[in-house]
């Protein structure tokens, strides 16, 4: 009997460990996720956002180093705070969306930095320029959803966002704060490894 009990316990532990590892948050809820940014014009913070973007994420809090993130932003959808600004920033000197319709980010390294805190690094590509960026984020679970909240500071000149007269950093600051809020549901354990 002793032997049998031990076997069951072992199987139980193995199963438990297995499911714990298999809680991978990957079903992104686009309607609940946002990418917002704050630019500074003449010292005044101005809020904007990118309403259209797609995120592919695979994140298991038990194994953050295995996580993968892929984000692609439809730049033409930008809301830069006013109609004037929206019309301006899609143009050549800013995002030049005709040539470069999207911005993309692909993670290369994800690591835990503290309780519920993580760091993701990878190339951010805008206007054909790939520059490594590191964003910090917090992760928490709410029901079946995993919630990622984080951000980083982008230096627009690194990507030539704002050329010509706009390269003047005293009117529109170089630093643009990017904040993301991504909600991804836990995928069912079986079909996680589809890709």
């Amino acid at each position, binding site marked *: 009997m002793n032997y049998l009990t031990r076997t069951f316990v072992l199987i139980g532990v193995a199963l438990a460990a297995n499911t714990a590892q298999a809680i991978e948050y990957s079903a992104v809820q686009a309607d609940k996720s946002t990418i917002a940014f704050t630019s500074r*014009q*003449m*010292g*005044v*913070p*101005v*809020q904007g956002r990118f309403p259209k973007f797609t995120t592919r994420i695979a994140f298991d809090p038990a194994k953050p180093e295995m996580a993968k993130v892929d984000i692609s932003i439809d730049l033409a959808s930008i809301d830069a*705070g*006013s109609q*004037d*600004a929206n*019309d*301006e920033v899609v143009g050549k000197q800013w995002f030049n969306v005709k040539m470069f319709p999207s911005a993309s980010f692909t993670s290369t390294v994800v690591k835990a930095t503290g309780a519920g805190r993580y760091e993701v690094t990878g190339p951010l590509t805008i206007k054909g320029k790939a520059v490594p960026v590191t964003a910090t984020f917090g992760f928490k679970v709410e029901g079946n959803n995993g919630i990622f909240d984080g951000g980083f500071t982008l230096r627009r000149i690194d990507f030539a966002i704002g050329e010509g*007269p*706009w390269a*003047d950093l*005293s*009117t*529109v600051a170089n630093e643009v704060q990017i904040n993301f809020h991504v909600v991804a549901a836990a995928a069912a354990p079986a079909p996680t490894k589809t890709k």
Partner: protein
Amino acid sequence: MSTPRYTRVAIGLHWLIGLMIFVSLGVGLYMVDLSLSPAKLRFYSWHKWAGVTIFTLVLVRCLWRLTHAAPPLPDPMPRWQRMVAEATHYLLYALMIAIPLAGWLMSSAKGFQTVYFGVLPIPDLLAKNKDLGETLTLIHRYLNYTMIAIICAHIGAALKHHFIDKDDILRRMLPERKASHPTAMEQIGTS
């Protein structure tokens, strides 16, 4: 008998505010038609900062006016003219308060906070709201058009008093000079 004059403070505030409004009107009308550029952003900021400064000066001026009565208008002026003059002055005070207020609320509604000289954030009383922002822009604009008309009347009246009626209305708002003005003395002598 000396001509009743405005106080030095009142005179100083009148011309300072007048000059600043003149410049703000010019900058305001000019900047709105510019295509978006760093220069436009700078004009907008300076316009807002000047407007806030004017508003503060106008508050001081109102306090001063409430505690220091304006010199009475000369006797020979017909009653209707006095009434029009006073109405014009009150309307100008009202516009000098309403225009910067509309500008400030408009900026808030459009989602652009006013940060005085880039250092002192002035709170947003309104949350961002596109339609409200557009309405307030129109209010700011038409109040300004109204003020331009009234300022023209105001300047026209002052010049008419000075050059046609040859009275002291304009002079009592001008900085006092040491020497007395012969025309003024004659005017008093004959009235």
